[in-house]
């Protein structure tokens, strides 16, 4: 007989928090005479989720490996430009443009990964540097939007099934694939291991650089997907669309809000999606209620800090107690939480 221990997973907490935010949001929205659950409003929320969702899924992988990716906003911008300029408004260029965009992004991710795992440069600094390089390139080569996207490609960002945008469906589909990747591949398993404790991983015979490089490549490719989606929505490529979205810090915030440990080794894709959804619902509710934009950031900030404080409080592990804290002379041992079978 095995007894399964009840464990209040961080992902479960995020889910509850999301439900709470939705309920509170729905009530608040109804006080101004609007319906939170209307098709239009749900479409707005889901649309708000998809771009950040792509970026945050990738960011989750990188953070699981105890690295970070600050280059994502510039990869997003660059990708929108490569896609729009390669397509030149022509339908027959779509496939080739998408492939080229993803390849360039993968190369950037490879560079990030090699700098972090090979040269042992801290992920924060490495990706900040790579991000600045891309930023500099964008600033010198582009004065404004460029290229154009054909109508067929714009449909991706504009159409939906009922209230559910196609882009959200793609994003959630990707989340499923990445969650399966983490669960069903050795590289996925080893991301947790390397992020959790590189020394243990090395002693267990792992090549500790490999999961880190893979995570960075996947993260950049996800950022490129976000760039493609933005190009589809805008109809053009933009050198500033990524940095205006603040996808670097917002994606990290969504990942952490989703219960993934910033130090690596623990976390989940579904937590991240929950974090992204919480942000999207908060934004939506505050927009509908016409809250002052400054207050919006205040609320976001409070949510992030509160979430991390809650997780940290739960994570503090102490040395094992031998005696009860107050009662003197209480002999021996604390209750062992599994029965010792004989």
């Amino acid at each position: 007989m095995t007894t399964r221990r009840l464990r209040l997973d961080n992902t479960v907490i995020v889910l509850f928090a999301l439900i709470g935010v939705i309920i509170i949001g729905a009530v608040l929205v109804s006080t101004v005479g609007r319906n939170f659950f209307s098709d239009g409003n749900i479409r707005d929320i889901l649309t708000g989720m998809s771009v950040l969702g792509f970026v945050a899924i990738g960011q989750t992988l990188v953070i699981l490996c105890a690295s970070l990716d600050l280059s994502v906003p510039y990869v997003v911008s660059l990708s929108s430009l490569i896609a729009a300029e390669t397509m030149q408004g022509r339908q027959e260029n779509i496939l080739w443009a998408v492939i080229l965009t993803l390849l360039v992004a993968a190369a950037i991710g490879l560079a990030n990964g090699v700098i972090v795992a090979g040269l042992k440069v801290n992920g924060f600094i490495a990706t900040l540097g790579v991000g600045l390089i891309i930023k500099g390139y964008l600033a010198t080569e582009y004065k404004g939007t460029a290229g154009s996207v054909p109508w067929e490609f714009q449909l991706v960002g504009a159409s939906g099934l009922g209230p559910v945008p196609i882009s959200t469906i793609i994003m959630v589909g990707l989340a499923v694939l990445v969650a399966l990747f983490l669960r069903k591949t050795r590289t996925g398993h080893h991301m947790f291991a390397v992020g959790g404790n590189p020394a243990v991983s090395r002693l267990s015979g792992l090549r500790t650089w490999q999961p880190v490089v893979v995570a960075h490549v996947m993260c950049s490719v996800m950022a490129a997907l976000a760039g493609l989606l933005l190009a589809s929505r805008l109809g053009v490529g933009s050198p500033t669309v990524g940095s205006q979205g603040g996808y670097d810090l917002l994606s990290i915030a969504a990942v952490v809000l989703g219960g993934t440990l910033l130090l690596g080794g623990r976390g989940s894709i579904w937590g991240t999606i929950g974090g992204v959804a919480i942000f999207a619902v908060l934004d939506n509710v505050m927009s509908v209620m016409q809250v002052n934009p400054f207050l919006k950031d205040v609320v976001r900030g409070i949510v992030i800090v509160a979430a991390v404080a809650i997780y940290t409080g739960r994570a503090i592990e102490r040395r094992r107690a031998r005696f009860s804290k107050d009662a003197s002379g209480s002999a021996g041992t604390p209750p062992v939480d599994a029965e010792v079978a004989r």
Partner: protein
Amino acid sequence: MTEQRVVEKREHDPGTPVLSVTGVSKSFFGVRVLHDVDLELFSGRVHGLVGENGAGKSTLMKIIAGVYERDTGEIVLAGEAVDHTHPIQAMRAGIATVFQEFNLLPERSVAENVFLGREPRRAGFVDNKGMASRTAELLAELGIDFIDPTARVGTLTVAEQQIVEVVKALSFDARVISMDEPTAALADNEVELLYEIVRKLAARGVAVLYVSHRLKEVFDLCDTITVLKDGALVSSGPAAELDTPELVRRMVGRSISTFFPPVVAGTAVGETRLSVADAGNAYLDGIDFELRAGEILGVAGLQGSGRTELAEAVFGAVPFTRGRVELDGRPVRIANPRAGVKAGLALVTEDRKAQGLALGQSVVDNALLVIRGVFARRTPAARRTVPGILSSLEVSSRGLDQEVQYLSGGNQQKVVLAKWLATGPRVVVFDEPTRGIDVGAKIAVYQLMRELAHQGVAILMISSELPEVIGMSDRILAMHDGRLVAELPGDSTEEAVLLAAAGHASGAAA
């Protein structure tokens, strides 16, 4: 409990050892820590390895595990000479080691930890179900049915985590499993479970190397006992031919007591400085002792006995939650290190790199660390006195601006001492004051203790080095399982102290 599986005995010829170590020596930085040691492990037998701290047990174990490379000698595993340079090679060859510091990922499941790096796959994908069921099978072979293979390791008790390490070893099909002080972190009721597991491993045909300070366990479990002293083999033979007093006699008696400096002339043990009555916390219970001005009070205890916890409780790092503490006759509550420092306490921690020094800062900044943090107004004055303190300790550095990380262990320890001397402490708690420093620096530390005692400072010295405890202390407290179990005079024999710290009635044989 599920019905006991019939454990299959591995084919083995009782005449030839599964692992034999011959003539192994090892030196670190010119200091020989193992000298021409032999060891033979037989399939299905439990082999005890005992010796005092510094006798070379851990070094020998790590050489077998592939963590260290030996300088000379030969290791033969099942008839083949082996030369492992990485622990994973030894693991794959069937030599597994359960270290005191577990090599587990607390955020991952039991099964994921057991098969880390070797996750079974089906059609290219990790077979999570298969992994869990194979882990469950391995657990069942040990008769363990209360660990869920999908449980997160961080939610398990220390004893359960240890079982996970053993299961990991079994999953490599280990022929040899060594265990380093496996009961150090266990509660009494868990020790019995570990015994059963060790016996099941032996019944399965595994050769177990059991390294422990705790002689009772060694007698309870082992068929053969090897004694090391000062890196050399003393004896190796059947456990049945030994008893506790004889074993202790073989372990102790190192010939180094000559370098303990004598008490400084004119040192007088004065009034009670620190008195602790019926105190305890989650790790300690019934702590009762008095420490006098000018006295060096030694505390001896085995690993896991609560030695460090006592130091931390007195200083306020992990404070007492019950009981009374008096300083110079006045009741005090030392709830945190800041309160401890203000009351005139100092703690020279066991781990100077992690807890004693800011490694990237200079010698002088480290020496001023406590003054600046707690007695900021005294900083200008201390800036003038600290160089004198450092030079009287003979800290050798390339100037006071050198970062302490580049100093030797002994000089680092002197900087830690300077940091505390600058505060003019009334009570100094030393936790393993000479760990990892060379003989010259050791003598310097001992002389400083004598000098402090001469000045009337009260010293509580916690140490796992018995010669040090006996060579330096006026009185000795023996600690066992979080309690002070005996008080012995400073001129006790190592034998008596070791027996007391092992939980035997003071001085008497089991």
